[in-house]
């Protein structure tokens, strides 16, 4: 989550104070990501240093400083919105590593390990879904964020299901059951 760019987006609507930015950030992410005020001010300082925002002079001691976006800031914001995040290299996913490791540990059933994680993910999804069950206090931004989270978790469940099926099939077809004989075959071919 790029707090920096989210703040630029909020400032693109017009000049704002730090406290206001904090509140609007939280409500614009459906209050799913809390943001502390210290983080808002450090981010604003950096944005100002980079020439992407400017602060208005406080009228007198003790009043809040307002911030507005610069032309450079608007350009930066627009290019960020249209640049896909880097998804080219697979993240080193801890769950994937756990499942791969379970294959190696004697006496451990990889299917049981998969089920432990599947159950946990579904429990999490139930909790998210409960949040949207009550449509009355369900605003649009919140709905979008909850959906994103549900789809993220769902994709992991689907990977687990696929892995489960693939491993089961591999176990019932000994020719592809383990990597051992296959590597051996490959070596023979190479020679």
């Amino acid at each position, binding site marked *: 989550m790029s707090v920096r760019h989210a703040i630029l987006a909020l400032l693109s609507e017009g000049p704002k104070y730090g406290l206001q930015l904090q509140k609007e950030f939280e409500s614009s992410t459906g*209050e799913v990501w809390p943001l502390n005020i210290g983080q808002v001010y450090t981010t604003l300082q950096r944005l100002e240093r980079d020439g992407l925002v400017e602060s208005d002079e406080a009228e007198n001691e003790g009043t809040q400083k307002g911030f507005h976006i610069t032309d450079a800031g608007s350009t930066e914001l627009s290019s960020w919105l249209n640049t896909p995040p880097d998804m080219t290299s697979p993240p080193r996913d801890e769950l994937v590593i756990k499942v791969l490791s379970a294959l190696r540990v004697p006496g451990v059933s990889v299917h049981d390990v998969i089920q432990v994680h599947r159950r946990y993910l579904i429990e999490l999804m139930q909790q998210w879904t409960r949040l949207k069950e009550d449509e009355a206090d369900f605003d649009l931004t919140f709905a979008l964020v909850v959906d994103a989270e549900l789809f993220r978790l769902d994709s992991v469940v689907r990977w687990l299901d696929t892995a489960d099926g693939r491993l089961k099939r591999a176990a019932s077809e000994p020719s592809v059951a383990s990597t051992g004989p296959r590597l051996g075959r490959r070596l023979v071919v190479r020679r």
Partner: protein
Amino acid sequence: MSLLELHQISKSYGEGPTAVRALAEIDLSVDEGHLVAIMGPSGSGKSTLLTIAGSLEEPTSGEVAIDGASLRAMSRNDKARLRRRTIGYVFQDFNLLPGLTAAENVALPLELDGVSARKAHQAGLAALEQLGLADRAGRYPDQLSGGERQRVAIARSVVGERKVLLADEPSGALDSTNGEAVMRMILDACKRGVAAVVVTHDAHLASWADRVIFLRDGRAVDHVAPDLSDSSLATPRA
């Protein structure tokens, strides 16, 4: 009160060495107002479980009771009445009658049960409307998209005063927005006291349930029944 009770249900297809054991010693009890999801890989016995719970198929051993009445003691006619009146069933392949419009399909179980044609039609329209299909009411199944047919089948399963709702992959041909509409409709039925069982591959659908049961090779291997008051989500909303 438990509206659906499965006790030690086993089911084998065929006999001897080629027999397939589709279900083994399944216990399941679903209370009034509760929604249970059944998950599991293809061939794990989900549809078999549902057809047995819906009295469409006999278990090899074990007992099924619906609304307190054991199926074992029932005549064919009793079971037919139960399926018409008490159980709403959504089949994996929808099973709409081709010669009837969407609204007529939905109203059919009510009419079979003696409700006047006009009242049944009204109830049918209301159910279709809830699933965003009001303007499709007069169409025949072959004039509907796959997802629309599926929603008609769901509307048909919830009209009337059913007590038990059994749905096999109710979101198979639906995009996620319509999948959510279907789950809301099922939840509404639960709020009226219906006991529902939904079979699904889809974790999104399962996450609407109070309880999720995982089948593997015909056995219930695990279940989820979280204490939802104790949310662990990292959000101030939770």
